[in-house]
């Protein structure tokens, strides 16, 4: 592999773009220069830190460290899903619904890919496990938070309809079915769009990165296809699990719609 290493000077040139953009923002009084500089600084620090962590992890290959890293990633993703909800479940459920479903789908898909498809040795080789999990988790997180957000808002909006269906003797599954289908569909739209546009409208980031790093394009493409399918699987199953869990939680043991289990809408 002939990787062209980037010098600090190379990065500094790219950073000039951010500075120039901040200058323009100030000049036009857009008021985003602070946010822009802060987020650029944040991403620099965060990425360097994760680079260091990964370096340590790659040098000390041990299941415990990989598992610890994966746990941190999933907890942060779970929190992110919770924060993005307009109306979230009160108590532990707010955090639990998203986190458990992400755990179920992302971990299963990643482990399957490592064991069956890539066949690394050891199977938890962090160089493969962590980036794969990261990509799958990031996308699953999006699908789940979109799906959950739609489900809870839809249920709140259609409360009278759902309760009418209950009053007619329908089960909670029938009464919520329309909202549930819609929520799952909404969660899946981004990955479906990404797959249809891949290669024509956009060159996916992972593949581009590999090509820049000197991997032959066709090899990079194969990895990208693998990753796309894994992401689609993780997102799809994760969203189905999360939305189904959440739909169940919206009803109590007497099949009453319990919107009081949701927080009041954030403004």
């Amino acid at each position: 592999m002939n990787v062209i290493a980037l010098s600090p000077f190379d990065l500094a040139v790219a950073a000039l773009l951010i500075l120039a953009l901040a200058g323009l923002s100030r000049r036009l009084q857009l008021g985003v220069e602070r946010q822009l500089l802060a987020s650029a600084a944040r991403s620099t620090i965060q990425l360097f830190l994760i680079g260091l962590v990964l370096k340590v992890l790659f040098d000390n290959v041990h299941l415990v460290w990989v598992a610890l890293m994966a746990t941190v990633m999933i907890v942060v993703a779970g929190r992110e899903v919770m924060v993005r909800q307009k109306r979230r479940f009160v108590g532990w459920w707010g955090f639990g619904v998203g986190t458990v479903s992400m755990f179920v789908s992302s971990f299963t898909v990643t482990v399957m890919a490592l064991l069956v498809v890539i066949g690394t040795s050891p199977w938890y080789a962090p160089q493969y496990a962590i980036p794969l999990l990261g990509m799958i988790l990031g996308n699953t997180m999006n699908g789940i938070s979109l799906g959950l957000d739609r489900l809870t808002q839809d249920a709140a909006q259609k409360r009278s309809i759902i309760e009418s269906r209950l009053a007619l003797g329908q089960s909670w599954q029938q009464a919520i079915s329309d909202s549930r289908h819609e929520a799952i569909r909404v969660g899946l739209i981004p990955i479906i769009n990404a797959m249809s546009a891949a290669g024509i409208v956009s060159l996916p980031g992972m593949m581009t990165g590999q090509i820049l790093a000197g991997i032959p394009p066709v090899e990079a493409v194969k990895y990208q296809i693998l990753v796309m399918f894994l992401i689609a699987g993780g997102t799809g199953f994760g969203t189905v699990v999360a939305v189904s869990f959440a739909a169940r939680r919206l009803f109590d043991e007497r099949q009453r719609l319990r919107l009081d289990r949701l927080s009041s809408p954030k403004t």
Partner: protein
Amino acid sequence: MAILRLQQLITRHVGPIELSVAAGECVCIHGASGSGKTLLLRAIADLDPHDGEAWLDAESCSSLPAPDWRRSVALVIAESQWWSERVGDHFAMGVDAAWMEGLGLPTDALDWQLGRCSTGERQRLALLRTLMQAPAVLLLDEPTGNLDQESTQRVEALLDDYRRQRQAALLWVSHDTGQIDRVAARRFILRDGQLAEEARP
């Protein structure tokens, strides 16, 4: 034939309520807005968490699966709700043509789009939708609230027939004292969370 009996029923600021409605009896409830008439009906239909118990003959609400209870003790809410575009999609068991006619609805109404129906038509269709499930008890929340005089009479007549033929128990919330005079065997006012029986005028 079934008797509805409420035992120490408490829901939010309403109760404890003791009441029984015999088979074939129509009991009316009226009261100021916010007195909790709708809350009471919702609790009986087990749509809200509540204390106390409701009985249908010897069977208690909590001993039956909730959907079974709600099919037997059916709530018809004031503002009818629909989830599909076509009227007929909401009638899983078809519809009784005689009842349609009785309510002044044409027999092809099942093919209508809901967007085309007036509020009054929807309200009558919603009542039919519930009656088709042959409930033993009807909990009616202002079933003629959006209807003109003629339609109101039709609804009253149909409910009267249903009550006699099926020996159904009716618990009917209405703010129209004329209507209460026409349909009620017994009448109550809901005030400060308690039911008080009123004499027939």
